[in-house]
């Protein structure tokens, strides 16, 4: 459904993204791994329209979205998250949800739309908030939320938006290890509802457990791609994460995990 072809973007002399081609199949969970500075977030910014590539095309469901405004890309059903989930601080949790609702999306350009929110919209938001344990914070300002609650709200907003493609930038970062498993469960549940995923994360165990396909990036390039256990056994990827000679020292990475 998402097809990135030959994308390049340089900042001055630094080739942040250098001839990158990736694709996300309908209904799949695709992962993107790589060290800091590999160009993963830049690629996210290009796909979501916040940065324009120097060359290359981005197609989503057979439409060329390379030159589109980020807001209209979002309108097509691509929702991305940010590494630091701050939300809208001086708006309530419920308002944060409503901004992502289809109710608001259809009416925010109108000066004559009513001020009331239909009961079904509020109820749908309440169900999601209860699921994420945020119901008691519903009418509080987001700036008063704890960091874990902010993270939960980020997923709650994403569910409210019900996108076709959800791009998660480090969803497991700062999440309590016990909760990472439940996070994986939620991603899987959403996939069953028809949502496709592109996600970036540094937690390889998490990425390998949820993803069908993984792309590994280094210095702006894709250096490996394929099924998770295949990619993390790739010598170039091993070298990236644990240095040269890794294969010799670590002959059997059987648990599908790489010690960092």
């Amino acid at each position: 459904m998402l097809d990135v072809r030959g994308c390049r973007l340089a900042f001055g002399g630094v080739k942040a993204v250098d001839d990158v081609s990736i694709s996300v199949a309908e209904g799949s969970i695709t992962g993107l791994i790589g060290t800091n500075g590999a160009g993963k977030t830049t690629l996210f910014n290009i796909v979501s329209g916040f940065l324009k590539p120097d060359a290359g095309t981005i197609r989503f469901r057979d439409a060329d979205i390379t030159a589109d405004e980020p807001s209209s890309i979002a309108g097509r059903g691509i929702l991305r998250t940010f590494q630091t989930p701050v939300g809208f601080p001086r708006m309530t949790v419920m308002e944060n949800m409503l901004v992502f609702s289809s109710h608001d999306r259809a009416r925010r350009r109108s000066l004559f739309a009513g001020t009331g929110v239909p009961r079904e919209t509020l109820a749908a938001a309440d169900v999601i908030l209860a699921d994420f344990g945020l119901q008691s914070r519903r009418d509080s300002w987001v700036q008063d939320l704890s960091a874990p609650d902010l993270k939960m709200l980020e997923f709650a907003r994403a569910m409210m938006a019900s996108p076709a493609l959800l791009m998660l930038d480090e969803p497991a970062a700062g999440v309590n290890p016990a909760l990472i498993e439940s996070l994986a469960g939620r991603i899987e549940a959403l996939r069953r509802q028809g949502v496709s995923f592109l996600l970036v994360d540094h937690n390889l165990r998490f990425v390998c457990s949820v993803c069908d396909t993984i792309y590994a990036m280094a210095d702006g390039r894709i250096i490996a791609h394929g099924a998770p256990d295949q990619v993390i056994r790739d010598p170039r990827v091993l070298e990236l994460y644990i240095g040269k000679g890794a294969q010799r020292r670590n002959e059997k990475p059987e648990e599908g995990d790489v010690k960092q």
Partner: protein
Amino acid sequence: MSGLALFLVSILSLGAIYAVLCLALNLESGVGGLWDLGIVSFFGVGAYTYALLTAPPAADYQAYILGFDLPVWVGAIAAMLAGALCALLIGPPTLRLKREYFLITTLAFAEVIRQLLTNENWLSNGVGGIYGLRPPFRDVFDPATYGVVMLGMLLAGLAVVFLISRHLIAAPFGRALKAIRENEPLAITAGIAPKRQNLMVYVLAGSMSGLAGVFYIWFNTIVTPGQFTSDVTFFVWTALIIGGLGSLRGALVGGFVFVILHDMLRFIPVSGEAASTVSSLRTVLIGMVLIAILRWRPNGIFPERPVKFPPTAPPVPAGAKAMVSDNA
């Protein structure tokens, strides 16, 4: 009416005009995130549009265009449209800029407009201004009580602007503005187009300020470029910060509190020589109140409050929780 009553009526009238400006500024700068330092532009353009359309043709010793002697309501609608049109012209270049860059550019545009009104004699009679503009229903009522009628009209106008403003803020339109103010990149991912949303609110604030310009002429019956210096912009900002940025009640109250503070010193009995010194203390007093507010009540008299939505499920009584989840 006694002198004090007349003075009170006049203060409240001016307060109502400032409150309209505060509501306009609150919509774009409190709810939206546009730091507009050119709110006086639309105030002045509205006032002059109204004056030029409703004034009689220019006399021999005057020079201004139009002078169609049109009815009050035509002038008022035209003033709102002119304020909106002015925002529509200034908006596209300035809204590309963020925060302090937007602020300085809007300040510059306001100054350009004031200089035009000052120097283009053929357009606006220059510094001479236009005098003797008759407010509505002036002939119908007894001149002694007309001040009260005027106050009634201004309060009615203020009420309309307040209701429109309240509606816009609570609607999805206002929620999108707040989202842009709070976190523009995240707002974009929700499908909000900041450029379009910002231009819409800028034009709305422009037409509200244009209407405030009409009210100002009703109150003053004269119009000169000197009434539209950037002082007005700073006064409205001060009033809004004292009242509470982002809060409807704050905007409403801020305008009145500001005008009352500003004119309070008129009551001090002083000699003629000391009068000018005392009147210049007005700005000092306002400044001190502003500092006090920022120190002890930084979010204003009525700070912005979280918006409450009605609960969708009846509250679950303690102890019954397990039962409910079993049924679900």
